C-alpha cells in the first residue's frame, strides 16, 4: 500500500529500490509542488501577519511611521482598560447565551423534524434558509424590525418594555443581538442534530418501548445521551463563531448604545482607525490566547464524550 510501489512503470528515474518501501524512498518532487502552494500562501496570509501582529504588540507603533519597543506596556494598559474588559465580558456573555439558545432550539427543532411529520423535506428546507443569508444584511433587516415594527406591536399590545426600541436600551440591546445571531446560527446546529438523531438505531427506541419508557423518558434517557457527541460539536463550533461576532453587531447596533454591545472583534478593529495599532494588537494577542485556552479546555472536557 505505498504510493510508489508501482512507480518504475511511470517514473523510471526513481533509483530507490522499490522493495523496502517503508522509510527510505524518495518523495516524488511533484508532491512538493502539490503541497507548497497551500503552505506558502497560508504562511503569507495567516502566519506572517500573526507573527507581525504579536511582534508589534510589544511596540508603540500606531500603524505607520516610526516605532519603538515598549515591552509589556500595551498588555498592562489593556488589562486595566475598562473598554477592553467590558468588550471581553460582553463577548463571552453573549457567546454563552447564544450557544445555549441555539442548542436548545436547534435540538428541539431537530427532534420535531425527525418525527413522523408531513412535509418533512419542505420544512427542513425552510429552516435552513437563514444559514445562506448574509449576516450583515439580515442584521439590517432586523434592525428595521426592532426599531419600527416591534415598538409598534409592543405599543399596540401595551407591553411597556417593548414600546421603545430594544436596540436603544443599553441593558437589553444584547438580547436583540442574541436573537439575530441565533436566527442565523440555528440551521447549522439543526442539521448536525438531525444527522445525530438519524444515526440512532431504531432498535434502541423499540427496546425502550418494550420496557415501557414514556416519550419523555425516551427523550431524556435515550435520545439526549446518544446525541451528546453532537452537542459537543455544536457547542465548540458555536463558541468559535460567536466569539468572533462582528457582522451582526455592526448591522444591528454598531456596538451601541454607548459601548454596551461592543465585541472584541470590533474593539480590535477599531484600533486601526484610531491609531491604537500596537495597543489593539495586544488585545488581539490576549484574545487569541483566550480562544486557544477555551478550545483546549473544550477538547479536554469532551474527550471521552465525542467518541460517537
Amino acid at each position, binding site marked *: 500500500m505505498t*504510493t510508489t510501489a*508501482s512507480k518504475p512503470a511511470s517514473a523510471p528515474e526513481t533509483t530507490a529500490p522499490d522493495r523496502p518501501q517503508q522509510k527510505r524512498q524518495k518523495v516524488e518532487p511533484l508532491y512538493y509542488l502539490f503541497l507548497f502552494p497551500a503552505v506558502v500562501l497560508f504562511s503569507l496570509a*495567516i502566519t506572517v501577519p500573526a507573527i507581525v*501582529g504579536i511582534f508589534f504588540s510589544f511596540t508603540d507603533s500606531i500603524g505607520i511611521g516610526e516605532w519603538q519597543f515598549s515591552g509589556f506596556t500595551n498588555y498592562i494598559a489593556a488589562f486595566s482598560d475598562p473598554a477592553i474588559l467590558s468588550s471581553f465580558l460582553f463577548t463571552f456573555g453573549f457567546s454563552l447565551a447564544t450557544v445555549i439558545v441555539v442548542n436548545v432550539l436547534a435540538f428541539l427543532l431537530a427532534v420535531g423534524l425527525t418525527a413522523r411529520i408531513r412535509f418533512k423535506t419542505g420544512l427542513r428546507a425552510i429552516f435552513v434558509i437563514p444559514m445562506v443569508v448574509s449576516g450583515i444584511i439580515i442584521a439590517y*433587516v432586523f434592525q428595521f424590525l426592532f426599531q419600527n415594527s416591534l415598538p409598534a406591536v409592543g405599543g399596540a399590545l401595551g407591553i411597556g418594555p417593548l414600546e421603545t426600541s430594544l436596540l436603544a436600551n443599553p441593558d437589553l440591546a444584547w438580547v436583540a443581538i442574541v436573537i439575530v445571531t441565533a436566527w442565523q446560527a440555528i440551521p447549522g446546529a439543526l442539521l448536525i442534530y438531525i444527522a445525530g438523531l438519524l444515526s440512532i438505531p*431504531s432498535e434502541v427506541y423499540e427496546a425502550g418501548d418494550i420496557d415501557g419508557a414514556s416519550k419523555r423518558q425516551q427523550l431524556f434517557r435515550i435520545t439526549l445521551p446518544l446525541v451528546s457527541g*453532537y452537542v459537543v460539536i455544536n457547542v465548540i463550533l458555536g463558541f468559535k463563531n460567536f466569539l468572533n461576532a462582528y457582522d451582526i453587531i455592526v448591522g444591528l447596533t454598531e456596538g451601541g448604545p454607548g459601548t454596551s454591545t461592543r465585541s472584541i472583534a470590533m474593539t480590535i478593529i477599531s484600533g486601526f482607525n484610531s491609531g491604537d495599532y500596537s495597543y489593539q494588537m495586544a488585545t488581539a494577542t490576549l484574545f487569541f490566547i483566550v480562544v486557544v485556552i477555551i478550545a483546549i479546555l473544550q477538547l479536554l472536557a469532551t474527550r471521552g464524550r465525542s467518541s460517537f
Partner: protein
Amino acid sequence: MSSTNTAPSLSTATVTGGKSGKAPGDHLDKPTRRKKPRDKPERVNWGTTIVLFLCTVTVLLPLYVTIMMAFKTSSQSVDGNAFSVPTPISVQGFIDAWQLTDAPVGFAISVFVTAGTVIITILVASAASFAIIRNWHKRLFKWSFFYLLGAMFIPFPVVALPQIQLTGRLGLDNPIGVVLLASMFQLSFSVLLFTAFLRSIPMELEESARIDGASTWQVFWRLVFPLLAPMSATVGIFAFLYAWNDFMMPSLIISDPALQTLPVRQNLFQTQFSSNYNVAFASYLMAMAPAIIAYLFAQRWVMEGVTQGAVKG
C-alpha cells in the same frame, strides 16, 4: 504507514458520507422512513407538524418583510409598517438601488470573489491533501498537515490589522487580496475534509492506474480529483457561503469603496439614505437573492455538506 493504519476506522465513516453524496436526500430521510412501518403504519404526527409550521414564521417573516418593503413606493415605505402589502407594486426601489450601489459592479465583484475563493480553495486544498496523505510517513508532510490545521484556532480579528497593512503594502488591498485571504481561511477546514476522504479511497485504484503507465500528475487529475467530487462539493459550498456573505474581510481589506462586494455596499443606506426604506430593502433583496436561489436549487447538497463537514470535522 500511518495512512494505511488509520484507513479502516475512517473509511467506514466517510464511505457512507460519500455514498450518500450521490443521493443526499436519501441519507437524511431513509432511516426515519424505514423505522416507521414497523410500529404503526405511517401515523402522521399532526401536532408536531403544525407546531413546526408555526415556527417557520420566525424564519419567513424577515424575508417576507424584505420582499414587501422592497416593492413599495418611497411614500408608502416611510410609514414604517413592515407587514403591509405594497399597493401599488413598485420596482422603483430596485432601479434606485441598482444605481445608488452601482449594483452591476458590486455583483461582478462578489461573483469574482466567490468564484475565485471556491476554485482556489478546492484546488489548493485537494492538491495539498493528496500530497499529505500519500506522503504521511514523511515528517514534512505530516507536520504541514498539523500546521495547516492549527489555523482553525486563529480568529480573523486577531490577524486582521497586520493583514490590512500587508495587503496594503503588496497592492493587494482589492478583491484579489480578499480571494487569497478568504481561501486561506477556508484551507484548514477543507484540508481536514479532503484528507479524511482521501484516506477512504483504496490505493489499489491508484496502483492499477500507475501500472497502466499514469504519472502522479495524471493519477491526481484523472483519477483522484474526480473521485473527490462529493467532498469538493462540500468544500465548495462552505467556501461559497463564506465568500458571498462575508462582510468583515472585504470591508477591511478592500480599500477602494468602488471595488466593494455586495454585502459591504449595503451600509450605504445605513449612513446616507436611512429613510429610503424601499430602496434599502430592494438592495438587500438583490444581495440576498442569489444565495437563497442557489440554495433552493442545491438545498439537498447544502444539508449534506454541512452534516458531512461538521460531523466529520
